[in-house]
């Protein structure tokens, strides 16, 4: 039985092991991804780990040309934009993630509602937290 605490640290450790893990409130069945130790819905603390399938729909996205510092460090910039968005997971929760396998230079070609699945990336630097993303289901 998994005994990790239900927090961000554990979430990213699981991502490193290529697992999208959240928590489920055993009292009211609400799902959280990333995990929470406290259920804002019912006030319970009776959580269990829940593995998400990593499948969902693209709910929102942007292609960024004026980049965040950690993304500039990875080589992104005005001529090399990256896509980031929100994926509405099949199980219910929404998750912020890099969007891969799309043409960030042609945002008009990216469609809301596109079915996506999770991709795990090698961390590019020690502080790189963007080593999980979603790409369109082929």
């Amino acid at each position, binding site marked *: 039985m998994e005994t990790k605490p239900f927090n*961000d640290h554990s979430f990213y450790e699981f991502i490193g092991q290529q697992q999208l893990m959240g928590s489920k409130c055993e009292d009211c069945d609400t799902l959280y991804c*990333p995990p929470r130790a406290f259920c804002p819905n019912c006030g319970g603390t009776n959580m269990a780990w829940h593995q998400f399938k990593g499948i969902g729909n693209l*709910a*929102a*996205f*942007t*292609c*960024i*040309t*004026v*980049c*965040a*510092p*950690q*993304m*500039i460090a990875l080589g992104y910039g*005005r001529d090399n*934009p*990256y896509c*980031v*968005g*929100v994926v509405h997971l099949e199980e219910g*929760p*929404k*998750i*912020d*993630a*890099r969007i891969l396998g799309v043409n960030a230079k042609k*945002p008009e070609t990216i*469609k*809301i*509602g596109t079915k996506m699945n999770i991709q795990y990336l090698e961390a590019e630097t020690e502080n790189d*937290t*963007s080593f999980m993303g979603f790409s369109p289901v082929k």
Partner: protein
Amino acid sequence: MMSKRKKLGREVAIVGAGMSQFGLFPEKNSKDLFLEAFLEMRDSVDKGVDLKEVEALYLGNFTNDFFTHQAHWGPIISDIIGLAPRPATRTEGACASSALAFREGVFAIASGMYDMVLVGGVEQMSACSTEQVAEGLALGTMPYEALAGFTFPGIFGAVATAYFAAFGASREQLMGVTIKSHNNAPLNPKGQIPLTVRDLMNKKAASFKRKEMSVPSWSDERDFLRDPQVNPMVAWPMHLFDCCPISDGGSCLLLTAADMATQFTDKPLYVAGIGQGSGRGFHASPEITSFEATKYAAQEAYGMSGMSASDIQFAEVHDCFSIAEIIHTEDLGFFAPGQGGHAVNDNLTALDGIMPINTSGGLKCKGHPVGATGTAQMVELWKQLRYEAGERQIPQPDLQIGLAHNLGGTGGTCTVTILERR
């Protein structure tokens, strides 16, 4: 959610208001900027005021810690304006920091503790590079957003893509906001960019000509805004002209218990309703095309005032990005979901429209020194409701009720304030 009608313990009035020039002033620090606002506020008190009567200061500031490597701005500002050793409290709610200062001041008077307090805000951003400002502002995003790679404009870009898909909208609606704000801008002498989009277009053409480059033949303002050469992408679909500028500035208001207000002016404004809400970021928000914190704050403010959206005659709405103004005018109940963009393009929100929005030029043109913005929005309500707005005075004969909406971060903190002239 059922909520009881919340009321203040006693009524609160505004008897003075001032703001500094907004713009880029690398030679001025936060003390200079706030003092400028303070002196204008002092001179705005019609019957004069002995400022030694001010009992406390509430000061909004977001990221001077990061931008200037100096925190603890409450007592610093209190000293500059001669309030020390009276209490000074700094409030932080990202870009809604001074609206929170305003609320604290209102509560301090409503509680009976104080009769007269100063509230305001200040921010000093231009000493940093654009990248540093972007990094500093990203401190105001919600958990997971910045980690995933979102920037501030990126968050609002993502909101816009969801809005476009939900309502069949496009950049054409966003451009309407930009053009409208810039139409009001030259009428505000305190604003940072006092130019219409057409002015900017003509300037750009002249600059191309000077550099002996070929001048594109833009047919109108929209054609100009569609040109990526002059309006480059920042974070799809947010382009440069969808984003407010980096600014320096300060603003403040003098509050008193309502029953004292006419000692200072025959034209006080009264706090009819205030509300504040908290948002949860994309990962936990019920909707992406709406800001739940704005809706909650509006419900509180409307509830307290006994008013509804249809009673509001004009508003300053937090337009950090063009899409934000559109969605907030819907969340505030001025327009139905999906109609905010059409309302702009139908000129309903123009200075002479039925619901003027951002007569000041908005954050887009007046400028957005983040910690100063909340109370600066109320400075605009002060000017409009007292018919002191000069060339940008709303051409309606009986303005009595205005609303200010301030958003912090990516929607984490929102406030709604309804001010009334009686």
